[in-house]
């Protein structure tokens, strides 16, 4: 019922991103993140993806920023060193919350789309057919690479070259992964290009399923909410 149309989806994301980037109040960003963004992600069943992303990408960064701004620098940017550790911590929280929020907004915009509709939405945003194919391929190739890297490690394990399958031991296989991965990438690329050419797939991709139109109500709700978020953050800067 609240699905926005592609244009509203793009516009709402853009407004919300600008609003988040302009935000200067750490508490406000945290509150909006917890009370608006997280429930929205949960409704779209993206909680697991987002939580994993936050734990791996945002939390370690947040801890580092709090230590650096709060303890080492001991002040917010532009203030004398050691003058206000609490302000430094507040700045670290603001940066981390903004990054989590921006990541969540992007995930809400792109990952909530059924994959078959991605190219249609990109087309509505004015992305040319080559751009659509590149972006769509980029989303599919990442799991493919993870699978291939896993296969290489498994093969080394089977040959007795890897002692155990702990995270650290697996990560130490990096030097042995590089060459097979690049060779695989180029070889697959060449084969894929030949197949695309033979089957005329690039032309067929243009006829990809069009995106759902969405509802007027859904479009209006998202755009108004994003515009309000932008206004809330813009107003203190103008004043």
């Amino acid at each position, binding site marked *: 019922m609240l699905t926005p149309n592609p244009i509203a989806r793009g516009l709402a994301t853009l407004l919300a991103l600008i609003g988040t980037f302009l935000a200067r109040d750490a508490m406000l960003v945290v509150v909006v993140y917890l009370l608006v963004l997280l429930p929205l992600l949960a409704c779209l069943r993206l909680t697991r993806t987002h939580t994993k992303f936050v734990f791996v990408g945002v939390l370690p*960064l947040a801890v580092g920023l709090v230590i650096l701004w709060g303890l080492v620098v001991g002040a917010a940017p532009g203030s004398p060193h050691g003058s206000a550790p609490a302000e430094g911590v507040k700045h670290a929280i603001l940066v981390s919350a903004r990054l989590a929020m921006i990541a969540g907004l992007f*995930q809400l915009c792109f990952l909530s789309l059924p994959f078959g509709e991605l190219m249609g939405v990109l087309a509505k945003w004015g992305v040319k057919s080559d751009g659509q194919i590149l972006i769509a391929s980029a989303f599919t*190739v990442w799991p493919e690479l993870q699978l291939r890297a896993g296969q290489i490690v498994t093969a080394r394990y089977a040959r007795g070259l890897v002692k155990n399958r702990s995270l650290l031991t697996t990560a130490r296989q990096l030097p042995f992964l590089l060459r097979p991965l690049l060779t695989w*990438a180029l070889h697959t690329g060449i084969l894929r290009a030949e197949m695309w050419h033979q089957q005329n797939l690039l032309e067929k991709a243009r006829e990809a399923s069009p995106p759902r139109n969405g509802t007027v109500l859904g479009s209006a709700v998202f755009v108004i909410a994003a515009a309000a978020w932008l206004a809330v953050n813009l107003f203190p800067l103008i004043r």
Partner: protein
Amino acid sequence: MIKTTKATEGIKSQESGVRALPNRHLLLALIPLGMAVNLGVGSIAQMIKLPVYLDAIGTIAMTLLLGMRAGILVGVLSFLIGGLLVSPVLPWFSGTQAVIAIYVALVARRGAFKNTIRVILTGIGLGVVAAIVSAPVIVAVYGGVDGSGASVITAFLIASGKQVITSVFLSGLAVEPVDKILQCLLAVWLIKGLPKTILRRFSGGLLEPNNLIKQEKQ
């Protein structure tokens, strides 16, 4: 439409050695794979807390194989999409990736990847360029300290009374050249290790001036 480079104009089929593939198909197939290499290696380096980034190997390798435009696309798109899947820090540095591809393409035309000494010098230059381009982004987005390994140096420089932008630039200069030397060496090592049948498909571009592939006699 993606414009093609000399590298992809000379692509020949494996069987006949004559039939040329449409360049657009090959570029569209290879760019996402280059992005995957960028993100894959970069995220492993990040996961095991290596003191280097290793997130531009795909950009450097693809620039050498496919040319500047493809390199820019690999770098920029991998960092934009990496912001969704890998780390929220990445999208802000997509401009740095574009500059890396441009720099690599420009110096590679003059044989900057010909031997190890040249590759090391190229890496140092690339590190300086990357530090210059990244510094304003780190100041604008994070206020100067972004939680990476170089941030500790930045924090101490700020604490010692230096200006934020100067501190970020100096800490970048301390870390980036080492990282970029390593990435350039790895990219060349990777390309040299590719099967000749695959490498031959990328002849006519930046590989020959750098002795990464032997020029075929007419």
